[in-house]
């Protein structure tokens, strides 16, 4: 076996598998991912999408990189997050909600039962309402949590949402083997 083929066996020149999902988020971070525009073609030269809203694959297989937007607000979110953690070598939390709970976590100081009552039964203009109770609906958690409170997270991309440029800088740093770094003006929390 030649030394060059040995090298390629150790570091196979294959596309990295890349999974993304949105949990308790608004898909704004995914919109920002699309904001890398024509650089999507460069990205697709180097990665292959696994589970993602872009592929509609429902469960992720073994992946190199997982990108998760949104925090944890219900039981299904926890299942998906754990599926990502057990399948992805590197897990990235993207956006304010994934990192600190974000907008959904603004309900955390309210009683969940009272929230549901007001939204579905007693709020203005509601006649004959009922609290949704279908078996297929995931049960909401009493509090919304950021991802790192449930599983280990390797990297964080803050922003609401982070810009396409910030996402591109971060992903290219990671793919090129550099420590990902967001300086001014790419690092922002709003």
């Amino acid at each position, binding site marked *: 076996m030649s030394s060059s083929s040995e090298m390629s066996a150790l570091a196979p020149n294959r596309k990295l598998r890349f999974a993304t999902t949105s949990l308790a988020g608004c898909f704004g971070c995914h919109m920002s991912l699309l904001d890398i525009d024509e650089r999507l073609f460069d990205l697709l030269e180097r990665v292959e999408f696994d589970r993602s809203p872009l592929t509609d694959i429902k469960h992720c297989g073994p992946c190199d990189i997982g990108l998760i937007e949104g925090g944890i607000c219900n039981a299904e979110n926890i299942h998906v997050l754990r599926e990502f953690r057990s399948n992805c070598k590197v897990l990235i939390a993207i956006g304010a909600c994934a990192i*600190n709970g*974000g907008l959904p976590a*603004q309900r955390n100081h309210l009683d969940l039962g009272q929230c549901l009552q007001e939204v579905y039964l007693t709020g203005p203009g509601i006649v004959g309402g009922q609290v949704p109770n279908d078996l297929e609906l995931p049960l909401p958690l009493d*509090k919304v949590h950021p991802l790192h*409170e449930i599983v280990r997270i390797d990297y964080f991309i803050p922003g609401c949402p982070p810009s396409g440029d910030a996402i591109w800088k971060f992903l290219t740093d990671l793919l090129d083997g550099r420590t990902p770094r967001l300086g*001014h003006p790419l690092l*922002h929390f709003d």
Partner: protein
Amino acid sequence: MRAQYILVDGLPIPFEEGQTIMQAAMVAEVFIPHLCHHPEFKPQGSCKLCTVKANGRYVSACTMPAKDGMEVENNSPDLNDKRRTMLQMLFVEGNHFCPSCEQSGNCRLQALAYELEMLTPHFNQFYPDRPLDASHPEVLLDFNRCILCELCVRASRDVDGKNVFALSGRGIGKHLIVNAESGRLADTAFSLADKAAHVCPVGVILEKRRGFAIPIGRRRYDLEPIGMQVEGQARRRSGEL
């Protein structure tokens, strides 16, 4: 008598007798991260963001008097790691949801988090329940973001002579209160013209109807990082000095 100097990261900085490390650094335009310090008020050393190593010991730069020949370590990975951890604790202790905050982009806490590259709050969120006080016609109080720096307390007491604000409680229960029987800002002599209305480093004391006069993205620390707004610091970093 020859001038006295301290060495901040090896840079000689002159000082006058009685000045603290922070005061000397500010005159020399050397950036030491800080939140509770304000040059117009008596230092109190509570936020600990300005922690430096002076002659090998951790001290608060804002309260430690400068001494001739003192070697001060400031911008080092060790100190910045500790400062970042302190910022993370401040972030999880309150409700710092930047996307909904009127002060985003003008906030010193956020600006320091950018400066020290804080990407995650790391610790578990407290999500405290702290109701707003919207009683005053000109000013809204959002206690969710209070970091207990006491700048408003000091400004109202020492400059405005009104004693509108105070800290109450102990330890983790410590919180900002309004000095009125009702506890409401409307029932105090507080006014928008007060010094206390303009010293909050975060987004607690907010002037009403002004929130988005300057859009997000064009605010103070959106334009330039906090460390680069100290002119001499910026010139040293760019190699001009």
